[in-house]
């Protein structure tokens, strides 16, 4: 018989006899409890699944904001729960991000760059939220039919991710029907035992895997998505920003008085009042005069400043000096000091130089203790001189042994230059003009006019800056970037091509020439390219209307523009007011006299805007002209006829090469100094027609000179022919036809004429005395603006920018696309679960 271990154990432990437990509630009656309704049991939970899709994310974000703010309030009073505390992190993240964007915006200078700080922050938040939705949730749903980022709302109304904690998933919130449907979608065997459990396990597994995938990819994805979003949004924002800038500028001129209010800081008046408080009733000395000059001339050009100083001097200086008892005493002291330094005896000095009291009496007796002018100084000097002479004479008589030469002493005292003459210096030390109410009132009146003028001028400056300023994000700068950016696309210059040539302007020039020759040789390409270019270039005229700002050289309109009228109004009103207050020199320097405004601040104010516009327009008109020239070469090179004679084919080949180089690469300095063209000094006497293929001249002789090439400065007509070919000959019919429909028609025609006149009429055009038009005295600035930027340089600069953006986009765009692809593909390997084999 085997040993019963349990019996043995009980026996060894001497287990006490079991007694029936005492009934805990002997009087408990279930029926009575139920009748009294005191029996409490848990109610059904109120939790539910949150239904929605990714497009409801913004709405959910807003509704979550209210909850977050309540959470903040609860946390501040110390009664928040865990869920609410979790939301505080979201608030902190947004608050901190906004603080970063706000601070960095203060470090940026233009509206667009400031705005991009906030766009970047917004894009970052959006990327953080969208990546899991787009790259995780959506593919998982499409592939497996499971929303792995499902949310539920618990019985307290708190929204939580359904799969947040895989150890606690509230499966009861899914109905059996819902789970079974998901199972069908996942292809789970319909006859499987415990099918719901299997489906749930599969869903859990999928969710855990996807949460991991999210954590592993979000770090790579969020910054890249943010950057790509910013890059994509930028052009739209730029367009909008440009419209805002343009409208803002237009509003300035519509009501310049109102707009100038913001600049009325009353700087001059306030500073002047400070000065009045300090110097009121005192004599106007040099220090005070300098301070007043500085206040009035701050931010004013040097020419106007000088005129203003002259006008101010009239108010501040009456050319009179105040002579009082201390002046007399100081003169005595100074003269004695002078003689002491020359080692004259004290006895002699005391005898020769009147004492302080004697000087005072001398001045009083001569009636010189008063306000006096410089012209009276000589009389006073004579009185003093006579007194000293008499005293020396008396001394010499009394002390023959110590006799001194009166003439020499007089020469010593009075012979010094007026500035260091102790007498004159003392007499002029006290100007008599007093900084009294008569003076200060004039100054305050002038200050008020000046402050008003300055505010209006700043408003005009702002208008000019916003429209045509040489600064980022002005209307003209945006236009430049827009046109030049499109140019690269339309020329079909690829990033690969740019990569090879981008560091060398000459290589870029070659590439550009190839592209233009290809376009010019094809009718359809040329018409398409030229039409697009002309439309783009002409778009400036709709943004900056010729009625607002125009460049005189290109536009023949005689009526003044809105900007010119505004400038006239502001400057003329100021000049008129200043003249009334006695500031006539200032008024002339600012606004001129009558219709003569040459060299005035008013003329400069107008010229700035016109010249900026001229430079930009000419840069693009030059490109249009260059393309036209290439078109003419590509279609009919033998149409180029010299002025008076037939030229050998070799010279024509050289000429066309020169024109091709100059239209694409010529700088204004090339035309103003020496222009070298290496030519064959003994061209072949071949007059056969030129041949062209794909836009290129089939050179028979050019570049094949047997005895080398050289510049031929004596050939006057060579450069004249080049100018004729480029700017004087008719444009190609295709170009004419496109321009005929464009508002640029007249301006381009004027542009060509101006080039011929202003540049072709330079005294030192290409070579001395090679002019094609009569000599003119146009300033170098206008010639520079007319020449504009060389097309190869334009493409060189823009190409580098385009390459940089393109390179960045290729690196991170490719990376982002790759990451998205891998993330989506990973889905196909997730959620694999083998059914449990049931052993039969």
């Amino acid at each position: 018989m085997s040993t019963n271990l349990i019996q043995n154990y009980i026996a060894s432990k001497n287990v006490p006899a079991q007694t029936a437990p005492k009934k805990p509630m002997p009087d408990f009656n279930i029926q009575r409890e139920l009748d009294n309704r005191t029996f409490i049991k848990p109610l059904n939970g109120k939790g539910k699944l949150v239904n929605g899709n990714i497009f409801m994310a913004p709405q959910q974000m807003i509704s979550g904001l209210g909850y977050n703010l309540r959470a903040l309030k609860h946390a501040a009073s110390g009664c928040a729960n865990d869920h609410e505390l979790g939301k505080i992190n979201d608030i902190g993240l947004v608050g901190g991000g906004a603080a970063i964007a706000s601070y960095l915006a203060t470090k940026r200078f233009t509206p667009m760059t400031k705005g991009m700080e906030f766009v970047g922050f917004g894009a970052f938040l959006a990327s953080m939220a969208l990546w899991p939705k787009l790259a995780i949730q959506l593919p998982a749903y499409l592939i497996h039919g499971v929303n792995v980022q499902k949310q539920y709302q618990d019985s307290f109304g708190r929204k939580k991710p359904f799969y947040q904690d895989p150890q606690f998933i509230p499966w009861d919130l899914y109905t059996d029907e819902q789970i079974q449907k998901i199972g069908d979608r996942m292809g789970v065997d319909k006859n499987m035992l415990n099918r719901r459990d299997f489906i749930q396990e599969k869903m859990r597994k999928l969710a855990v895997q996807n949460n991991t995938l999210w954590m592993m990819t979000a770090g790579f994805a969020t910054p890249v998505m943010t950057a790509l979003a910013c890059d994509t949004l930028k052009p739209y924002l730029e367009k909008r920003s440009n419209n805002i800038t343009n409208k803002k500028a237009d509003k300035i001129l519509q009501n310049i008085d109102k707009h100038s209010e913001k600049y009325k800081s009353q700087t001059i008046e306030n500073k002047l009042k400070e000065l009045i408080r300090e110097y009121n009733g005192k004599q106007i000395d040099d220090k005070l005069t300098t301070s007043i000059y500085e206040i009035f001339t701050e931010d004013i050009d040097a020419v106007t400043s000088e005129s203003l100083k002259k006008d101010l001097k009239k108010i501040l200086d009456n050319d009179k000096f105040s002579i009082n008892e201390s002046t007399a005493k100081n003169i005595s002291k100074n003269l004695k000091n002078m003689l002491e330094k020359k080692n004259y005896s004290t006895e002699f000095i005391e005898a020769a130089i009147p004492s302080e009291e004697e000087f005072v009496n001398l001045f009083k007796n001569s009636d010189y203790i008063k306000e006096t002018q410089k012209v009276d100084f000589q009389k006073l000097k004579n009185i003093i001189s006579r007194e000293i002479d008499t005293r020396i004479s008396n001394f010499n008589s009394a002390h023959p042994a110590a006799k001194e030469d009166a003439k020499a002493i007089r020469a010593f005292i009075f012979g010094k230059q007026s500035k260091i003459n102790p007498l004159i210096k003392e007499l002029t030390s006290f100007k008599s003009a007093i900084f009294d109410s008569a003076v200060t009132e004039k100054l305050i009146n002038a200050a008020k006019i000046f402050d008003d003028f300055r505010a209006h001028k700043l408003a005009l400056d702002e208008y000019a800056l916003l429209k045509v300023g040489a600064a980022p994000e002005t209307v003209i700068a945006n236009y430049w970037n827009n046109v030049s950016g499109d140019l690269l696309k339309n020329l079909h210059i690829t990033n690969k091509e740019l990569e090879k040539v981008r560091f060398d302007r000459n290589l870029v020039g070659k590439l550009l020439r190839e592209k233009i020759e290809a376009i010019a040789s094809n009718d359809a390409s040329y018409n398409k390219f030229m039409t697009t270019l002309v439309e783009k270039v002409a778009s400036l005229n709709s943004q900056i209307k010729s009625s607002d700002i125009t460049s005189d050289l290109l536009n023949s309109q005689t009526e003044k523009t809105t900007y010119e009228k505004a400038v006239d109004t502001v400057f003329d009103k100021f000049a008129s007011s200043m003249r009334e207050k006695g500031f006539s020199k200032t008024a002339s320097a600012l606004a001129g006299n009558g219709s003569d405004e040459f060299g005035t601040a008013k003329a400069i104010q107008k010229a700035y805007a016109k010249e900026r516009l001229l430079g930009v327009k000419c840069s693009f008109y030059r490109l249009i002209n260059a393309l036209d020239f290439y078109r003419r070469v590509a279609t009919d090179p033998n149409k180029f006829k010299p002025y008076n004679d037939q030229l050998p084919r070799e010279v024509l080949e050289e000429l066309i090469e020169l024109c091709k180089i100059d239209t694409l690469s010529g700088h204004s300095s090339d035309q103003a100094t020496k222009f070298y063209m290496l030519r064959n000094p003994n061209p072949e006497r071949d007059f056969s027609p030129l041949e062209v293929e794909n836009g290129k001249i089939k050179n028979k002789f050019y570049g094949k000179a047997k005895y080398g090439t050289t510049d031929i400065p004596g050939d006057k007509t060579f450069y004249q022919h080049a100018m004729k070919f480029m700017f004087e000959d008719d444009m190609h019919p295709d170009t004419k036809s496109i321009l005929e429909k464009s508002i640029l028609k007249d301006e381009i025609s004027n542009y060509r004429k101006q080039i011929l006149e202003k540049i072709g009429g330079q005294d030192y055009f290409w070579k001395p005395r090679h002019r094609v038009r009569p000599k003119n005295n146009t300033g170098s600035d206008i010639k520079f603006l007319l020449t504009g930027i060389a097309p190869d340089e334009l493409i060189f600069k823009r190409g580098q920018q385009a390459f940089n953006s393109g390179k960045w986009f290729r690196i991170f765009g490719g990376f982002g696309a790759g990451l998205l692809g891998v993330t989506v593909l990973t889905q196909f390997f997730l959620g694999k679960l083998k059914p449990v084999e049931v052993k039969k």
Partner: protein
Amino acid sequence: MILPVSSVNKNINFSADKSENKALEYNHDTVLKNNPVNKAKIGLDKFVNAFTVYPAKGFKGSKNANFYEFLTMGTVPYLIGSGMMMAVFNSASKHYAPFDRVMARSIGNKLSLGVLFYGIMKNLSKSFVSQPVKMLTGVDIEQPYAKVIYELPDDINDTDITSIEHHKVFESVEFPRWDLLYGDESKGEKRNYKYDKIAKRLGMGENLKDSDQEVKPRIKEIVVKANLAKNISSYLWAAAGVALAAQEPWDNFFNVMTLKFWKGKEFKKTLQSFGENFIKSAKSLWQGEGKGITKQGGKILLGLAALSSILGVLNAVTSTHTPSKTKAKDVINQNEKYVVN
């Protein structure tokens, strides 16, 4: 002889073979000292797990994967994202033309430094709240403990079913680990000695009969308020870090900077330059340039960050806890339905 199974036995172990036991540092949930060494150890443990063990478990869809692991893996996007941001700002610039490269690198380097300072300031600034609160109240909101986890075996041969997680005693304000703060009477410790200390520090009196019950509501309040201050202020300090990195003087630092620490002289120069330019940049941030908001921006940002920490601490140490006017019998309204879910 068969012994009764008891959950009181703290050495409980489901391993099939004792010789294969994993040498765990702890065999039950243990409060750890909140010191730099432990912080570094915990940080390293979480970092390594976040990049290795937890992703491996996650991708397998392990039945033991839990919320702690998911949260710990949050470090991964943080760190990778920081590196990625630096790459976004800088990696393309090497292809640019020289002038563009210099300009792009000047901006890119400062933005990268901003990413670095963001992380440093965000973590460092948490102690601007937690330390004063600890000193003034005795409540350490960062108090760590090691939690011993028993997992389900993946299969019949899986004997490695224990692991350690690093939590904080007050990471949940609804379910704080009060139990870990009681003294071990078997070691001669007073059961409530930790609560006594907090009560004393909070001015609630000494030798309280049930100090634990007295201070628990107050601790909860402190933890909530301190966490609020810590969260909000850490982001503002992080923003101040980015602002500091955006200052002009850093350009001088990047001109001489090298990360080649093995080149002693050059690396020393780098460190020296970093120090100099850190001070210059801090001054530049404070003083600002230009006028108006552009000039005052740095002061405003630093002021906000400092204010958020100071006000947060003041709020945390000030009790808004007033005795309830509701009578005990009225706590449960007989006419309402209550649910526990």
